[in-house]
Every structure is written in C-alpha cells, then in structure tokens.
C-alpha cells in the first residue's frame, strides 16, 4: 500500500498526459469538418507538394503545447506527413505552459504556445539552445470564440464589460439587466450562468485576459496571466475540456479557439465593440483585427502585440496569435531538418491556406514573410 506511493509519482506524470489525452479524445470525436482538409493536396507531384520540401528530414519529431493549435496541427501534420512519410511528427496537445516547460527541458523539437516566451523563459531556453535562445514564430491566428449553450437562445450579443462581469461572477443570471440591454427582443431565460474557464495554465486564458484588461478596465483588474485569475466559475482542462462542458451544460458559457466551436457546433457570442454592428467570431473578422498586429520582438524573435480595442467594422477583437517556439541556434542535430521542413510547410502559402476552413486566420503577409526568413535561418 505504501509502496503504491512510489508508483503514484510516476503515474502522476503519465496521468497528466492521460488526462489531457483522454479529454481531447472524448471531446473531439472527429473534427474533420473542414472541407479543406480532405482536399489538401497530399503527395501529388505538383508544385504545391514541393512546398513541403522534406530535405533530409527523417525520424521522429516530438512537439507539444497549445491546445488552441491542436486542430491546425492536425491538418498540418496530415499534409506534411503525406508529403514526407519519413518523418513521424507527434504534437501532444496540452497547454501553452506545458509546451514551454517541455521545450525548456529539451524533450521536444519545438513547442506551440499562444503567448510569446517570457524573459525568464528565454533565459531558461538558453540552456537547451546551445549558443542560441528560443524564438517566437507567429504561425497562425484565430478568434477566441465565446461559446455558450442556452436552450432557446440562438443569437447573443455581449460587450467587454458584461463579459468581464460574467467571468468574474458579478453577473450570475442570464436574465440580468446588462445582458437584456444588449439583446433587445431576445427572450432570456431565468437561469444561472455557469462560466467555464481553463483549469491549467493556458495561453488562451492569457489572451482573453489581455482583451478584457484592455477593453473593460473597470471590471477586469487582473494581470493577464496564463493562470485563471477571477473568482468563481468552474474549471475544465484544455480547450477540448471547456468545449465539452459548454456543449453538455445548459446555461453555460466558456472560451476556446473558434475551431472547437465549429467542430462541435457550439453557438458563439457576437461582440459589441462599438462598431456599427456586433461582430461575429469568424476567421475573416479575426484577420481584420490581426492585420493591425505589430511586431514586438527583436531580430528573429517575432512576438506580436495586438490591438484589442479596435472598433473597426467587422473586426473581431478577441483574437490570439499562436506561436511555434524553436531555437534560433543550437537546435538538436537530429531534429533540426524535420523542424525546419515542417515549419517551412506551416508558414507556406499552402500551410496557411489549409486552415481557413477550420476557423483559423492566416498571419498577415508582411509578418509571414519575416517568419519564413527566420525559419530559413534556424540552425
């Protein structure tokens, strides 16, 4: 019995994987709902396939991190492995925090994260990247959908202050005056609101926090961190876990990358930004907001800063840009060709195009050009 403790620790590590894996499994039966996936040009000997130039990439490449990227990764991995069958790429979708930890322990070739590396994480990465450091390569953007499940309400408009109050348990009921005021003519039921957030460190949480902090200063006074800051509500693990709960529970609201909403047909909230009409969460609308992104990093580090307070018509303000994190110098020799080949493919026109059907927004061209240059210089 006491000896079980010893196995307990080891099981814990495995368990962490198992839980996230299990939740992902249970939450997405098949998210192959994007029409573009099936038509993605596989290993046809056309010019398109040469985009996935394999070079001398082979062997196994492990990567892990952001679950907001998972659906994009699935499509990318499919497209890439069809062109380069010599590489076995395995992206473990957990959370941005876990991806960065794994990267800084040297267990993965690259990490996916919805937030750029923090200064202390960059310092840690220097141990792994011999002579270099971890850099942020913005690979794909997308709207963070505010998904809700409310029987009998198929269209819902909210604004930033109301959203902030819902997520910090100030507004507890669906027929609250603030929600009614934004939704004239909608019959809102008298039901308690069940707000779901992520139980683990999440880049999606941090991006939502940045948005609320920028647009609802009075109601959202928390630091934008990966850990959920507000009181109340319920937690679930991973984007898939939150989406599964929202899907299941009547009267719930949660936030996740748009592809989870499309995959499970969860209704999403339209955001009243002050534009002429409330803005829906779609890839095009997110692209409009991401187009205004500025590069905040230096050199090959392409961390972006986003403008959350946009009032432009049709610009959906709650967006995240999700990064791939790799070493600029000192990548492991065994995985470097595969990392380069794969990232080249994801940053290519084809890699960016594949995603439009899956609820993602491509990175603006000028930034994408810089990303490609940075990938080419990885060593």
């Amino acid at each position: 019995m006491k000896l079980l403790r010893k196995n307990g620790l080891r099981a814990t590590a495995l368990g962490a994987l198992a839980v996230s894996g299990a939740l992902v499994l249970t939450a997405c039966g098949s998210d192959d709902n994007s029409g573009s996936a099936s038509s993605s040009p596989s290993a046809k000997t056309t010019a398109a396939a040469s985009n996935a130039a394999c070079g001398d990439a082979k062997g196994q490449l492990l990567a892990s991190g952001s679950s907001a990227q998972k659906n994009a990764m699935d499509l990318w991995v499919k497209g890439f492995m069809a062109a380069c069958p010599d590489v076995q790429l395995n992206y473990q979708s957990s959370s941005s925090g876990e991806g960065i930890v794994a990267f800084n322990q040297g267990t993965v070739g690259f990490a996916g994260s919805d937030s750029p590396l923090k200064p202390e994480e960059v310092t840690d990465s220097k141990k792994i990247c011999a002579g270099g450091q971890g850099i942020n390569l913005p690979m794909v953007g997308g709207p963070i959908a505010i998904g809700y499940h409310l029987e009998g309400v198929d269209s819902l408009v909210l604004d930033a202050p109301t959203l902030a109050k819902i997520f910090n348990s100030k507004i507890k009921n669906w027929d609250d005056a603030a929600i009614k005021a934004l939704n004239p003519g909608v019959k809102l039921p008298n039901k308690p609101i069940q707000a779901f957030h992520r139980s683990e460190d999440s880049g999606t949480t941090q991006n939502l926090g940045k948005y609320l902090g920028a647009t609802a200063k009075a109601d959202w006074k928390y630091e934008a961190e990966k850990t959920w800051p507000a009181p109340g509500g319920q937690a679930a693990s991973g984007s898939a876990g939150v989406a599964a709960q929202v899907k299941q529970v009547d009267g719930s609201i949660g936030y996740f990358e748009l592809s989870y909403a499309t995959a499970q047909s969860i209704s999403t909230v339209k955001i009243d930004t002050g534009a002429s009409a409330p803005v829906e969460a779609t890839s095009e609308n997110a692209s409009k907001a991401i187009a205004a992104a500025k590069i905040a990093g230096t050199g090959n580090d392409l961390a972006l800063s986003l403008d959350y307070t946009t009032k432009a018509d049709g610009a959906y303000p709650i967006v995240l840009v999700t990064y791939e994190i790799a070493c600029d110098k000192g990548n492991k020799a065994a995985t470097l060709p595969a990392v380069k080949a794969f990232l080249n493919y994801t940053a290519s026109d084809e890699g960016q195009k594949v995603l439009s059907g899956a609820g993602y927004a491509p990175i603006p061209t000028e930034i994408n050009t810089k990303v490609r240059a940075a990938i080419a210089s990885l060593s």
Partner: protein
Amino acid sequence: MASTTPIDVPPPAPPVKSPSGTSTGRAGDKIFSGLSKGSGILLLVVMAAIAGFLTYRAVLAISKDEGNFFTTFEWTPSANPPVFGIAVLLVGTIVSSIIAMVIAVPIAVGIALFISHYAPRKLAAPLAYLVDLLAAVPSIIYGIWGALFLVPYLDGLNLWLDHYFAWTYLFDQTQPGVARNMLTVGILLAIMILPIVTSVSREVFLQVPRMNEEAALALGATRWEVIRLSVLPFGRSGVISASMLGLGRALGETIAVATVLSPNFLVSLHLLDPGGGTFAQNIVAKFGEANEFGRDALIASGLVLFILTLLVNGAARLIIARRKEYSGANA
C-alpha cells in the same frame, strides 16, 4: 498386553552441527532466510529513501514559500514571490475520502455478508468475482465514466439535496454548477474502493469459527442474530482494516478525481459547489506546467499526503492491535 520391543524405537538422529545454533546448516535455509531478511530491509530502505527525497525537496520549496504553507488558499509557486499552501488540498482530500468511506463501507459490509452468509453457494462465487472485477477497471476509465456519465446524471440529485437539505449547510448549493464537486468525487471514490473493502471483509466473515455460529444457532438464534452475535464481533477489526485499506486508496486516487472535479483554490464545505481539490489531483493537474521550483512545491504537498497516509495506516494498526483475538487477513 504385548510387550514393546526396543527395536520399534528409531535410532536417534545424529546431532546436527550448527555453527550459529539457529540454522540447520542447509544451504537452502540460509539462502531463504537471507532473501526474506533482505526483502524486509530493502523495503525499509526504499521507504526511508522516499521519505528522505520528499523531505529534501519539500524543505527546498517551503523555505522559499512566501505564504503560510498550511493556511494559504493559493497555489502560485511560479509567481514572484512564490505563494502556495495546502489548506484547500488537505480539506479536500479528507472530505472526499470521508464521503467515500461513509458510502462505501456499509455497502461493502452488506455485500460481504450477503456473499458469505446469505447467497446460495452457486451465486456466491460469481458474485464475489464480479465485485472483484470492479478493482480491475483502470482509474482513468472511472474518471471518464464519471465525467461523461455520472456528472450529468447527478445534477438531479444535487437539485434534490439542495432543495430539501440546504439547512444542513453541507448540501446548500451556493454556486450554480454541474456536479463536478466534492460529493461526486466522493461517490466515485466510493465505487472505486468498494471491491477492496468487500473482498477483505468477505474473507474475514468466512473465517468466523463454525463453532461460534453453530452454538448461536443451537441456542435458537435467527440468521441475523447469528451475524449480529458472532460474525460481526469477530470480523470487526477485519472490517476496520479493510476500510483503512480502502481509505488509503481514496486518499491517493489521482486521475479519476482530476477528470471529474472542477478545481479551484477555495475551502468550502458546501459539498455541492464545484471546486476544491485534493493532493493527488493538484499534483497531476499542475505537474506538467510546473518549473523546477513548482515541482518542489508539489512534492512538498506530496510529503503531506505521505504523512497523512502513514497516520491512517498507523491508526488502523493500533485498532487491530487492540483486538488480539482476531487473526488472519489484517494486511
């Protein structure tokens, strides 16, 4: 009377030369006693090593903890300054285990009595086997089943409890929420510890001396009176030790709890409110993202669980030691 002849008496065996005076000098005996002694010592060494490792890492973490390790309702070891405390985890671990025990032990004793004294022989063996099968289900499966099946179905029970028993404080639901709460965790743990408690209790009840039972029957006792007068008193300490085994499982259950619970860092005795946490659940949830120091902090919480489990086992031993007449399966 036939006279006995001295020829019948076997000649005395030659005296064995034993250098130590204990061993017979046969190699097999030496090897076996060495092996068993070695295993015993090895176990102690392993335990001491685990305790030492946990303590060392825990001290590293606790010395830098800006909060009070025992009373802080927070877990942010990676923040600057690091603040973490185990109050929520300690309460959550104990509360969920108590719920599990309250539900599981009476049911397990009932099942064990049914199998050992009531069920027709043909039915008893398959039934016992069936209950033991519950132990073969991996805990992640319990977790997924709990999250996808049990939780939605317990919503109704929650509403009912909240409606009629809110005055107990325990069953007052102050926050809306699906049943991803301590009560659900307790129910799930109860199902998970049922087989171990049942099978040990069953073995104990089967060991009741036939004499006692037959004596009671001869005095005209009904079957229930037999059980009350001879089986239960005889099996009491066995049932207690079985329960403690189950409690040990409940305290350390990880994945099933992590899959079902909606964790937060607030201590609340409103069992129907989502939230809370247990040691093991917190470790599994935070380990993946924890940096070196965060892992030390988690190990510190693991040390507390280790000590808690030792205390529980120690208490069980004391209870059993006080009742010497019981022998057998006090594993």
